[in-house]
């Protein structure tokens, strides 16, 4: 078999058993891998109405046919489960070395069911899968956990330094253990499958970590053609300067861009321009200030990851990040203007295992509640104006569920409505809004609001490119990009490299060389549309309907940026038309018939 391994590993945590299954051919052909395959398995195997933190929820780790093949920027793995934050289907994605190791171990899919009676961690070494007690690791932070696991594996399996260095680990920090609803699954000491709180699902299963060390191989359908295609891609990347730009600045070039377009989320989305970030508009400044070296995910020539250093004895020598989303949400949006403080906040969130985006919107919400006088200081224990570094304390309190952190760990709406102002939490379907202020571009508001997993910035191409910001076309592009990214996430390719205008046509090419498939871009887009509709049906079965496609009132009623609001209701009408859905955002029978999802739609339409 080319590309795929064709095997599913099913682990029952309740009984501590494991089972090997064949990967059905239709899943490979029609759902490719990653996100689409995960959605399908989840749709088939769980009742969407269950509580996301109950043992009935399933946690699925997936790779795609391209993972670990050397196709540029194809190192990623997907985690799928029902989200405890948004109650939607969710499929966050993470790079690093874990995905390829899972693939080289000979598995495409690992499904976790039930709940372990005691904390465990699981090691996968090719076909050998072992359970180990993790009681002594419970409470450990993310990097410490990885260190401990490597230490134990060295002793147990007599592994040498090379083997320990090659392996990949996905784990949770204290936030995941304490079921914080926006906890992340961490990997490689600072990468995260972050959005939508799957760390809490992992914690609810008493699963501390999953370590993979694979020494197997992936077969390539046309090795010579593949090699030539990669060389052509490299030439293009060098000629257009994409390699250079991304390697030099990663996402640090974006604060300047955001300020210039007035889309920098600032002070809980009160503004689209951050005074404090003016000094970081030139990415060279950030680079000179904190960068140590460039760090790539497995098989990625772009290496947009940056290792950074801050001069603070409390923090270890170097750490990953911060990326732009973190800089914006934990920085500008909380009123922090100092890069070293942002690094501290980023480091804390990574170690505690929390999504920096939702954590940022939670903190900024608390800050606004405090400044407006709705949140009394005695509840917090300390003052918390915008820009106050007491937020570090609050981050720790959330992760450990201490004091007011216990309430905040339940998510933004629960917290803000307790203090009578749910509208001050800037979230969509419960998930915090990403770094870009939607009022700067209408298209952004539409993309965020209609996203199946909640307020996510990685599920459609950002509207900074030709056509995608043109009012005549952006609704159409929103739909097309959403469908396309479903498939990019299924490959699994890195969204940030392969979004629409850059290398959108490459997916079918890589798939052809690696798997021998002859699916064209149009075929894949059709499959993508089906996945998007399948996710929609899952969400509807879970109890969310079209009315969930909403933005916070601040975005739709208060003109904060460029004196504009997002005319969401008008946009939704047009968007639903493009989707072939009715005016409530429910897929029509005809549409489902066209996509072959009639059976899946039964009971909701």
């Amino acid at each position, binding site marked *: 078999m080319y590309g795929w391994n064709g095997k599913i590993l099913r682990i029952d945590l309740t009984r501590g058993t494991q089972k090997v299954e064949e990967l059905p051919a239709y899943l490979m052909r029609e759902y490719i891998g990653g996100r689409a395959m995960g959605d399908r398995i989840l749709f088939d195997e769980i009742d969407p109405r269950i509580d996301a933190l109950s043992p009935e929820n399933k946690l699925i780790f997936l790779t795609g046919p391209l993972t670990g093949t050397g196709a540029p920027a194809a190192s990623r793995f997907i985690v799928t489960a029902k989200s405890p934050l948004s109650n939607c289907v969710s499929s966050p994605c993470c790079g690093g070395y874990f995905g390829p190791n899972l693939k080289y171990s000979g598995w495409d899919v690992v499904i976790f069911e039930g709940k372990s009676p005691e904390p465990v961690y699981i090691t996968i070494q090719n076909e050998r899968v072992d359970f180990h007690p993790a009681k002594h690791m419970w409470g450990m932070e993310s990097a410490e956990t990885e260190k401990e696991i490597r230490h134990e594996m060295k002793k147990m399996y007599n592994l040498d330094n090379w083997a320990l260095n090659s392996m990949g680990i996905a784990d949770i920090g204290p936030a995941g253990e304490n079921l914080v609803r926006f906890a992340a699954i961490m990997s490689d000491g600072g990468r995260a499958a972050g959005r939508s709180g799957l760390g809490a699902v992992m914690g609810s299963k008493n699963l501390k970590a999953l370590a993979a060390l694979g020494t197997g191989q*992936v077969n390539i359908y046309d090795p010579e053609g593949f*090699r030539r295609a990669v060389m052509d891609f490299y030439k293009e990347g060098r000629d257009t300067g994409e390699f250079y730009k991304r390697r030099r600045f990663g996402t640090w070039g974006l604060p300047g861009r955001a300020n210039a377009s007035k889309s920098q989320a600032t002070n809980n989305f009160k503004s689209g321009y951050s005074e404090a970030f003016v000094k970081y508009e030139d990415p060279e400044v950030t680079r000179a200030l904190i960068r140590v070296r460039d*760090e*790539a995910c497995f098989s990625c020539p772009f290496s947009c990851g940056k290792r950074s250093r801050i001069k603070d004895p409390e923090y270890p020598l170097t750490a990953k990040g911060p990326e732009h989303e973190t800089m914006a949400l934990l920085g500008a949006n909380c009123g922090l203007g100092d890069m070293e403080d942002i690094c501290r906040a980023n480091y804390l969130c990574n170690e505690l295992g929390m999504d920096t985006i939702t954590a940022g919107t939670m903190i900024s919400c608390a800050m606004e509640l405090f400044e407006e006088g709705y949140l009394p200081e005695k509840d917090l224990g300390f003052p918390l104006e915008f820009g106050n570094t007491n937020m570090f304390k609050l981050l720790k309190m959330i992760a450990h569920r201490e004091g007011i952190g216990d309430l905040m760990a339940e998510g933004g709406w629960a917290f803000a409505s307790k203090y009578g102002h749910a509208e001050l939490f800037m979230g969509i379907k419960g998930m915090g809004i990403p770094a870009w202020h939607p009022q700067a571009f209408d298209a952004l508001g539409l993309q965020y609001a209609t996203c199946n997993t909640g307020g996510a910035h990685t599920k459609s191409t950002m509207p900074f490119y030709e056509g995608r910001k043109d009012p005549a076309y952006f609704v159409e592009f929103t739909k097309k990009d959403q469908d396309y990214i479903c498939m990019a996430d299924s490959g699994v390719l890195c969204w940030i490299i392969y979004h629409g205008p850059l290398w959108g046509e490459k997916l079918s090419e890589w798939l052809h060389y690696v798997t021998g498939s002859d699916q064209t871009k149009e075929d894949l887009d059709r499959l993508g549309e089906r996945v998007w509709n399948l996710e929609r049906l899952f969400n509807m079965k879970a109890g969310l309907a079209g009315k969930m496609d909403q933005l916070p009132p601040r975005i739709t009623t208060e003109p904060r940026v460029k004196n504009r609001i997002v005319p969401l209701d008008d946009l939704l009408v047009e968007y639903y038309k493009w989707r072939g859905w009715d005016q409530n955002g429910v897929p029509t029978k005809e549409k489902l018939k066209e996509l072959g999802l009639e059976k899946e739609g039964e009971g909701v339409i």
Partner: protein
Amino acid sequence: MRIKIDHKICTGCKQCEIACSLAHTGSVNPWRSRIRVFVGEDFCLPVIAGPYTEAACNSLGIRMVEGIEVDACVICRASCPAKSVYKEPDTGIPLKCDFCGDPPNPQCVQWCAPNALTLEED
């Protein structure tokens, strides 16, 4: 000809491992590669497989390389029985870099996007 390694700009993407295994085996498996990258916190170190040796080892302990502490076993290029790398995972047959034929055309150098690996005339 020599392959020059600049560990300061290596990003740890391991495309060289993939290129090597793809060129020599037609499939992708870093464990069958003749070059491996050791990813440290503050450095990445590509190490190219040298000759096989059965000799008792004296490269143990920690060495300092340009201010970085490195395990001497990691920077040793020898393909030896004590290491898990530079050998076929199934058969244990040792591997050695062959510069991808004659004239030399090392695939790892071609695939190295940051140019941490370069081919130099002697």
